[in-house]
Every structure is written in C-alpha cells, then in structure tokens.
C-alpha cells in the first residue's frame, strides 16, 4: 500500500492552516449520505501542500437532498467551485441490501432505474443552481450476496443491480462537461472491503469509510481538484541505471543489465510499460542520467526488452554533467514550468540534491525495491486532467519533432534563417465542438506566454463562442517537421464598433520563440481593420510565470495608455514575414 499519514496527523495539521495564505483559492463542498468526518480537514491540508487555499462547506449529516433542492441553501451560498457528492450503497438500497430477492426481477429493475433517476435529477437540479463541477461517487459492489454461490445463476442479482446502477450513472453523465463519476467501487477494490468498511465504526457513528482510509479517499479527491485547476504534472524526468533497468550499464554491460527475463528485470519492464501508457496520453518523458552516452543509447536503441525507445523521449541528457544543471537544461529545452515536472531517480542523494536545488520539482520518493516502482507511479494522482484531448495523445510525437527542430537550429545557427526554413503555417480556427475543449485546456494551463492568464472552463468558452460581441479563436501551427496542433488561443471583446479589447492571448510553451504570436496578432488586426475598428486595447497582467510575454505588446507597437496597451489600427502592421496565416 502506498504510504499515507494517519487521519490524526491531518486533523492536527488542519488547525494550523489559518497561518498560511496562498494565491490559489478554491471553494469545495462535500455532501454525503453518511458520516464522513475528517475528510474535509484532510482535503484542506492536502490542498495546502499544493499551495491551494481550500475553503470548504460540509453539508449536515444526510442533508444532501435538501441542500441540492433548495436553491438558496447554505450549499449554494458557499458558491462552491467543486462539489463532491458521496453516496453509499447501504443508504441507497435500504433493506434491499440484505433482502433484494423480496422483489421480483422486474421490480428490482424498476427499483434500480428509479434510484438512478433520483440521482440524475438531483445532479440536474444542482447544475441548474450552481456552476460548480460535481463529482458523484459510484457504489461499491458488495462482495457479499444473500444467495451465496447461487448469486451468479440468479437473474439480476444484488451485484448486477448495483453494477447496473453504476453503469446507468456513468452512461448518463458521460457527455456532461461539469459532472464526473468518482469510481468509489474501484477505491474499495483497491484497498479491500474489509479494510475500508469497519462494522464497529458503522454501528458507532454511521461511518462508512473507516477513519484509516479517509486520507486515501481525500487523496483521490484532491486529484480531481488539481486536475480541475490544471495543476497536473506534465513531464517525468527519469534516471536510467536502476530506474529504467536493473544494474549499471557502464559496469554490468549491455548483456549484464536486468531488463525483462528474470524477476527483477520484469519489474523494470512493467515500470516502463506504465510509463509508456502515460506517454501515450500526453505525459512527456525525458532522461537525466550520469552515463556514457553511447553505452546508454545502445540499450535504449537495441536492447530487445526495452519498452521505451529514443523517440519516446523529448530530451535525453545522458552525460557526466551535474544532475541539477542537466535538469535546468531539460526545462529550458522543453519550455515546461518547473512545477509541472516530476523526477524519478533511484539514488536518494540525487533526489535530495534536485529537491533542495529546485524545490518546485516534484521529486518522487522511490521505494528501495524496484518491484514497487510501478505501484508507486500508479498510486499517484498527479497526472490526471479533466479531459484528454487529441493534442495530449499526440504530444509525445510533437516533442520528438521539437527535438529535431532544435537540432536543425543548431545546424543553421542564424535564428531568422532557421525560422524561414521551418515553413510555418498558422491556421486560424473558430471555436467549435472540436476546438472548445482544447481552447479551455490551454487557458487553464498556459502560464508563460499568456497576456492575462484568465482561466476558462469549457462551459465558459462554449458560452463565449455563442456571444455575438466576442471572438473566440485558436491557431493550429504546422511546420516542416509536423503538426503542433492547436497551440494558440485568443479571445477578443468587441466593446463597440470602434474599439476591441483583447481579453486573452496565449501560446502554448511548445511553440514559443517562433514568431507565431505575430502571425496571430496580424490576423486579429486585419480583421479589426476590415470591420472598421479604430482601436485595439490589450493588457499585460504580470504573474510569477508570464515574463516571456512582458515585451510582446510594446515590441509590436502597442502604446501604454493608463492600465492598457493601445494599438491604433490605421498604423502600418508589422507583418510576420517568416510564416503564412490561413483561415
């Protein structure tokens, strides 16, 4: 089991949180059908560890229905941004939990359908009254059955009933943007029904998740919180020896390392397989290893049991340089914020060194036994995102192209010449069903090239795109090495027929430094000119991370007027000459 603190630790720590103030604030509501003391405190502590100040509302014992149905309830007064609704199987089944077969098959089916509808209606009511995301737990399928071994020969038995209820909820909410199903059934499967459910605590205080397991549940919930806030990790930096394979290639040799055939070797293959799965959904992988480059590359390229190959890594720092320096080089190369990086290294000294030198990096406390590497990685909720988009799936390929680009840059030397040779094409696209998820995702997670850092959920973007006085657009950027996908977003407010304001203007870090921003701005200004607009206003709102955007507006010719940067449309446009913009 992954290591976790006791509930008492979180309870006493939660009392000290008033002393900490963080910039990120979040309002969370917890509704449940049973006693779930300690969850709220643990969530607040775990959020504070991620530098989020979490303000919580906890509904009274089993008061969730009233709270949701009354449109001026304390729940709505607390204006939650994320709401957890935790229901349990005993409450929903009532007496039928022990005697489901007192009803006929048809009645059982009706009962489950009715229960599903009750929850669906509650959720509908909730989304009418609140803009909060809603996370509803599904139901734990009990290991017990009143019919024992005959259960599986019984039409629509207890387990099937609850499974059906879970399916109905999942299917119904699959297309809802603001509602997620929390797989509580998997949570119980992972830790075991006999552990998670303690009869004494149940009889004593209607506690249906035993106190020992509240921190684990809180951890899953905080996973949703980070995903919704866009705080997910994006890149894993890996050591090689004793991390991706067993042994030391420089000493044990190509044939001597453990990878695949023996039990220890299997542990490393398994670990690589899971890393590959993460890579396939958009997590970037990089290597930071002290090794002879040729020895290590031979394994990566030629070892028959190696899962991850050269093309899976966005950066390969295999040398004898300082680990921290290597780390900083990787960050520069990939243009990813330090706080979205994770470091895996089997050597505690290296871990300590990176952790102390670059505190923003998440350094994983790797267990001493490689057999547990995979479980450690699997139990981390840090990679979750609200939505996996096509860009995520193709990200690995894009970073590979990026590596090739920087190789070309090194060959050519002259930057302007390099840009010209890239043959950049910027395709301007409107916000539609295909692009809206990605547009929202970019506003949520782009930090560096972002004029205003306004964060917008999918619903917001969808609403903007329907508003006549707003332009929501995005840019897909291609070059000779391939497609970068949608990597630029702009939102313009048409304040009047004379004046527009740029509400949002951002570029994904992946394409910073290629003059794409000029192409997009050209496009906006030309559009303004066609519509007879005289003046375009923009703002640069400084944050800790958007320094790369600081000089963009003045360098383009915007003049500072009060709080805004202003561009008079009749002034000649500085044309981006190295790229083509198409609509």
């Amino acid at each position, binding site marked *: 089991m992954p290591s976790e603190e*006791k509930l*008492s630790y979180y*309870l*006493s720590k939660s*009392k000290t949180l008033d002393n900490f103030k963080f910039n990120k604030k979040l309002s969370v509501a917890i509704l449940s059908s049973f006693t779930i003391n300690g969850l709220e405190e643990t969530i607040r502590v775990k959020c504070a560890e991620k530098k989020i100040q979490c303000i919580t509302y906890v509904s009274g014992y089993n008061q969730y229905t009233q709270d949701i149905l009354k449109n001026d309830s304390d729940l709505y007064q607390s204006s939650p941004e994320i709401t957890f609704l935790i229901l349990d199987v005993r409450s929903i089944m009532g007496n039928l939990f022990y005697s489901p077969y007192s009803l006929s098959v048809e009645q059982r089916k009706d009962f489950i359908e009715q229960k599903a509808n009750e929850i669906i209606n509650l959720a509908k009511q909730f989304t009418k009254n609140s803009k909060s995301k809603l996370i509803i737990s599904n139901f734990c399928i009990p290991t017990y059955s009143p019919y024992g071994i005959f259960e599986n020969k019984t039409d629509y038995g207890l387990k099937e009933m609850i499974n059906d209820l879970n399916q109905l909820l999942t299917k119904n909410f699959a297309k809802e943007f603001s509602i997620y199903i929390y797989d509580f059934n998997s949570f119980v499967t992972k830790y075991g029904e006999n552990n998670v459910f303690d009869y*004494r605590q149940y009889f*004593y*205080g209607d506690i249906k998740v035993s106190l020992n397991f509240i921190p684990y549940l809180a951890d899953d919930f905080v996973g949703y919180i980070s995903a919704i806030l866009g705080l997910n990790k994006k890149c894993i930096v890996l050591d090689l020896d004793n991390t991706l394979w067993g042994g030391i290639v420089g000493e044990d040799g190509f044939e001597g390392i453990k990878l695949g055939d023996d039990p220890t070797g299997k542990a490393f293959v398994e670990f690589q397989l899971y890393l590959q799965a993460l890579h396939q959904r958009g997590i970037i992988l990089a290597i930071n290893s002290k090794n002879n480059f040729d020895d290590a590359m031979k394994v990566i390229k030629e070892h028959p049991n190696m899962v991850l190959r050269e093309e899976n890594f966005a950066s390969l720092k295999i040398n004898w340089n300082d680990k921290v320096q290597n780390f900083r080089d990787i960050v520069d190369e990939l243009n990813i914020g330090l706080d979205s990086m994770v470091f895996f290294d089997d050597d505690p000294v290296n871990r300590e060194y990176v952790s102390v030198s670059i505190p923003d990096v998440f350094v994983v406390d790797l267990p001493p036994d490689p057999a547990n590497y995979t479980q450690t990685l699997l139990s981390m909720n840090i990679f979750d995102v609200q939505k996996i988009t096509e860009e995520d799936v193709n990200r690995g390929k894009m970073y590979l192209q990026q590596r090739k680009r920087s190789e070309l840059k090194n060959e050519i030397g002259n930057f302007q010449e390099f840009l010209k040779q890239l043959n950049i094409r910027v395709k301007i696209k409107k916000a539609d069903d295909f692009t809206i998820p990605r547009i929202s995702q970019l506003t949520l997670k782009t930090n560096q090239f972002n004029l205003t850092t306004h964060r917008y959920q999918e619903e917001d973007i969808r609403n903007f795109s329907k508003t006549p006085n707003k332009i929501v657009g995005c840019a897909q950027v291609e070059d000779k090495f391939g497609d970068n996908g949608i990597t630029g977003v702009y939102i313009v407010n048409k304040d009047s027929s004379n004046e527009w304001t740029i509400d949002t203007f951002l570029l994904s870090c992946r394409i910073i430094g290629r003059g794409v921003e000029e192409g997009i701005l050209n496009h906006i200004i030309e559009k303004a000119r066609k519509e007879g607009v005289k003046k375009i206003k923009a703002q640069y709102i400084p944050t800790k991370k958007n320094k790369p955007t600081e000089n963009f507006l003045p360098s383009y010719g915007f003049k500072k007027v009060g709080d805004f940067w202003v561009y008079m449309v009749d002034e000649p446009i500085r044309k981006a000459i190295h790229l083509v913009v198409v609509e």
Partner: protein
Amino acid sequence: MSQKLYEIVSKVMNVPLVDINDNSSPESIENWDSFSLYILLDEIENTYGIKFTLEETLEIKNVGDFKKCLEHHGVSLN
C-alpha cells in the same frame, strides 16, 4: 509504560503531554468528542496490535479505561 499511551492521547487530542493522566476525560480535554475518541481508538489499536470490541469502545470514559481495556487484551502498561 503509560507514557506511550499518554503520548498518543496527547497527539490525537492536541493537548500537552503533561496535562494527561488516567483521569483525563471529555471534562478535562476539550477536543474529546465521539469522533476524536474513534480516532484515538484507531491509533491505540494500531500501536498495540489489538482490536477493541464495540461494547468496550462504548464504555471508555477516561484514559484509565483505555488502560483497563488494554490489560484485558493482554497489554500490560504497569
């Protein structure tokens, strides 16, 4: 040997160790409520590797009662 038990009580109830004795109870410890009692039970069970019965948990009124229960389960604190 009572020391270890007192330490657990002090940690869970957020009370200085010196203020804990066998007579410590909801009257003298502000944080002692039905919920914190269960957290305390949990920690004591995990520390000593025993399980209290439901009945026992209901009869615990002060720290001294914990000792009696522990002794009943073969854990001697004196």
